[in-house]
């Protein structure tokens, strides 16, 4: 596959997934104009930015859920909107924020639905499907829940099940829209560890939208900071996360210290007195 030759060449050659001068809008409300983004192959890219900066919108465009009103999203050099839907679904997976577990569905069944793009009317459930589903459940640690109903699970378990479903899709690229929302801190770290593992051990390219800047700085290999629909900075967290950047993007005065655990940048907001005095 073409992906291997381009390993670690961030901007020099064409990456598998990129957005080219896209204008993104819902009805008449324009979220971003002339936005260009490259997702480096084999990276764990995290998109951060304040609320309503367009980060989820960008992710929706990258996963062809939103059609750009101008410009195009390229997957392996082709405009993603013009590719066959199932072919895209075998290359690029998405874990959206809004997902509904059907009433009375078991974990195994839900994960099995991730095999849809590999199936057809005469190829509904192959031994390969069976194997991949088992493997996806094992990787996400939900194998022993296979016969349980999804409605009975805790929020953290449920998120793992959805990730397992996306894994069963077996895509080299996986996009996650705020995968840690509504989870408590332990499960947030749990999900992010799982993502990091998928990235490191399987060489998948991951793109996630995250709210927490410290989580982003800790787990991302490539960070994209968005504000008002524009890319303010991008690069390795250690290179780009500075007090100035955080102030520019989030409007928050802060100190950046070294994370004692990982050596990545850690954002410490300035004390309230210091911030109000400056204002």
């Amino acid at each position, binding site marked *: 596959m073409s992906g291997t030759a381009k390993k670690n060449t961030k901007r020099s050659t064409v990456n598998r997934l990129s957005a080219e001068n896209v204008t993104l809008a819902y009805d008449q409300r324009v979220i971003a104009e002339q936005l260009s983004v490259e997702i480096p192959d084999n990276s764990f890219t995290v998109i951060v930015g304040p609320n309503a900066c367009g980060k989820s919108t960008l992710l*929706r465009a990258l*996963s*062809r*859920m939103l059609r750009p009103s101008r410009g195009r999203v390229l997957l392996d050099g082709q405009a993603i909107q013009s590719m066959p*839907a*199932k*072919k*895209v*679904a*075998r290359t690029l*997976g*998405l*874990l*959206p*924020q*809004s*997902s*509904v*577990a*059907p*009433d*009375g*569905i*078991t974990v*195994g*069944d*839900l994960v*099995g*639905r*991730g095999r*849809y*793009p590999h*199936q057809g*009317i*005469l*190829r*509904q*459930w*192959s*031994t390969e499907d*069976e194997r991949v589903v088992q493997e996806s459940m094992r990787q996400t640690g939900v194998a022993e829940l*296979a*016969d349980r109903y999804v409605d009975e699970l805790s929020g953290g378990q449920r998120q793992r099940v959805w990730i397992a479903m*996306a894994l069963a*899709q077996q895509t080299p690229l996986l996009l996650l829209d705020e995968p840690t929302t509504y989870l408590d801190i332990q499960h947030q770290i749990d999900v992010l560890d799982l993502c990091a593992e998928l990235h490191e051990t399987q060489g998948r390219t991951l793109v996630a939208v995250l709210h927490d800047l410290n989580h982003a700085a800790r787990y991302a290999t490539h960070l994209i900071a968005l504000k008002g629909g524009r890319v303010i900075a991008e690069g390795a967290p250690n290179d780009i996360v500075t007090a100035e950047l955080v102030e520019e993007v989030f409007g928050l005065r802060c100190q950046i210290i070294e994370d004692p655990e990982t050596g990545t940048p850690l954002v410490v907001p300035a004390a309230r007195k210091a911030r109000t005095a400056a204002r």
Partner: protein
Amino acid sequence: MKTNRAVRTPGGLSVRLDVRALVVVLLLLLAAFGASVLLIGTGDFPISAGDVVRTLLGGGDPGQDFIVNELRLPRVLVALLVGACLGLGGALFQAVSRNPLGSPDILGLGQGATAGALTVIVLFSGSANQVTAGALVGGLVTGLAIYLLAWKQGVHGYRLVLVGIGMSAILTAVNGYLLTVSDIVDAARSVVWMTGSLSGRDWEQVWPLLALCAVLVPLVLGNARALRMMEMGDDVAGALGVRVERVRALLMVSAVLLTATATAAAGPVSFVALTAPQLARRLTRSPGPNLLPSLCMGATLLVVADWSSQRLFGADQMPVGVVTGVVGGVYLLWLLVSERRAGRI
């Protein structure tokens, strides 16, 4: 997972079977056949079940042959086909709107077809065929209007239901107006049509229904897997490679056609479209749209309802729509109460 079996061939083909759903379908078909035989045997000239089956297979004396094959069989076939169309149409509506209340009864498709039929009866004093055509047009126009009002960018939760309730309120008013301006003969004819009745149906009603089913049922079932993906939300389905908008438009057009044609053939038989998918789902205990079980359940329900109305009230005394209305109404109340308990309303 437990009741799912994969059947594989050495050539790499595989089919997934839900054993429980299959058993449910077979039992429902059996029940529908049994009720049909009983229904054919019921009437001013009772015929025993054995004679009915023998006559259907080509035996029997000429008198029985005339009564069974010319008079009663078409009526039973219309009942089966109308029930099947309503069951399948209802399952499609409920699956696409992800809401048990998102069924044609609540959405005003029946009222739309009624408005079309009454217009023909009251304003043009049209023939039976013209009334059927009017009902069909009324149903299709209503379906289109609902689509335009509610369906843009997908339907979520109760939006469709609310738009539908609005539509049926308007259409009920229109129907009330048409009834008040009509003379007594037209009014009587209208009221009979509005209850939904199977009496006097002959082979002429069977063929168009059969043709429609022959085209739409395979088309709809072919998209069942995509519809199953859409249960999880448009984004998940889209990410899995389903062309959500296209599948939805196709299935909605099919559902409106099925419902409108069924209504045109038998009048607005109420609540079959609402209850059949829910009952089928409770029997199969399987997530997913349960399209085929709903179809069989609709057919069975309508034949059983018709048979019980004839048994309880005598031949052609009570239109089948009254029976389904009473049974379905009770079911709707139960559904509202249990949805409320579950905190969904």
